[in-house]
């Protein structure tokens, strides 16, 4: 796992230390460590000379900047209307069974977190899920399970 200072140095060398570099910094940490720990938020606040509350307040505004521990692979199933009509409930059910967790939870081995999210812009090819940044459209329960299995072997 990359050290927090290393991540922050990389971001600040590219974006500087102004407040406008805060989002790239938080995003880079989440990409590496899957979530923002309290220690990481304190480190970010120090780097940007902001109060910890400011940084925490910004992070918690955004659903993709998690402040609770998440698995290595964060699965987000779209729950908005088109995907709903296309059968997102069956997908979620299949994923819950395969991973043996409920929506909002993380597997014991810390490999997967299962979440739902609002419209992801694949309404013509629903149901759809994201695993980290990867998109998987036109899902069936079977397809979803196979995708998870391929990640389990990673």
């Amino acid at each position, binding site marked *: 796992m990359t050290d927090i200072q290393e991540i922050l140095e990389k971001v600040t060398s590219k974006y500087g230390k102004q407040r406008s570099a*805060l989002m790239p910094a938080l995003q880079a940490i989440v990409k590496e460590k899957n979530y923002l720990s309290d220690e990481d938020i304190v480190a970010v606040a120090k780097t940007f000379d902001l109060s910890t509350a400011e940084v925490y307040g910004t992070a918690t505004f955004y659903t993709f900047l998690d402040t609770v521990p998440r698995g290595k692979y964060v699965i987000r199933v779209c729950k908005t209307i*088109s995907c709903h009509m296309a059968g997102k409930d069956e997908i979620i059910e299949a994923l819950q069974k395969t991973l043996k967790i409920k929506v909002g939870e993380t597997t014991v081995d810390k490999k997967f977190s299962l979440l739902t999210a*609002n419209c992801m*812009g*694949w*309404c*013509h090819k629903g149901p759809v899920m*994201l695993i980290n940044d990867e*998109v998987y459209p036109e899902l069936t329960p079977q397809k979803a399970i196979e995708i998870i299995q391929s990640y389990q072997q990673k």
Partner: protein
Amino acid sequence: MENKLKKVDLIFCKTCQDDIEVVKKALKRNPDDIINEIIDSGLKGRGGAGFPTGLKWKFAKAQPSDIKYVVCNADEGEPGTFKDREILDQVPTKVLAGMAICAYCIGAKEGFIYLRAEYNFMLNKLNQIVEEFNSKMKEVGLNFEIQIRSGAGAYVCGEESALFESIEGKRGEPRNKPPFPTVVGLFGKPTVINNVETFVYTAMINHLGAQRFKELGTQDSRGSKVFSVSGDTPKAGIYELELGMTVEDFVKEFGDGDTKAVQVGGASGHCVPRKKFENTIIGFEGIPTGGSMMLFNSSRSMYNVLKDYLEFFTEESCGQCTPCRVGCQQLLKGIEAVKRGERPASYLEELKKLAQTMRIAAKCGLGQSVANPFISIVDNFKEEIIY
């Protein structure tokens, strides 16, 4: 039966223009001429709000400031909309060309693309394209550089001032307006912010001339528009269509034969029931749309549709202003209570009043537009909400 829908192939045509040449050509023209041509074309913003693009550029140009910005709004989050993703995927340099022309016109040196986090899968490819484009701009002598910034899963950041806040590293809470972005925008500087599709049309108008654009559409809705079609349709996907068609024309082409309602403009848009298909025009004289078209057939419960929308807004409200934060929750609780029989049917009238209050009192477009789906669905499908 004759089909009145006219499909157009301007946006996705890959051989129609060399984007660097388009910028070069623009650089030889007077910025005022370019802006006047865009005003003359009648182009209105393609993100949904429909502000005249040329005027926006004109206002930003008129501001005396050494620093100005061009921002491309690629935070496409409206449920049912996915055309900007396709545009950025298929013809990204057309968008960049539009941004460059805008920068030249208003005198901006920096540009930002705010890409929603859900589209991060194309970030690497886009970054490469942007880098190449930036160096090409240096070659042609335009001092303008574009950067991409990622969103982080907040629908409200599609609202222009919330988007600025987010790029600035803050919570994506909309600002009070006025001042408008053309006066006080990103980092407090005059800014033009346009939708992805809008930038493509500006480049195209510069290339083909306003006349070609004006030939399409109607008096109030010039040109063509990219539509995202989803829901109960055998032809879900992305289509560029001439503006000014009726919902009836649209349903004939895209319906499954059993269409009972079309939601025009996404969750924040209006629901059009079958009896109004014939007389409802899709465009600024009827129902404007950012391109989201969702079809529902008679197997769908409009209660579930409305409930889904309200859950969406309840989650995505930034919580900053009370009318929106509390209003969304109460509308949702309200229809649930009516459904369970805990409230009389007449309670829906009270809820409509609340929605109307939100339209006036909410700070930004999110809260103001919740009344659109709420009132149009409750009025047209009252039985489905109650029973």
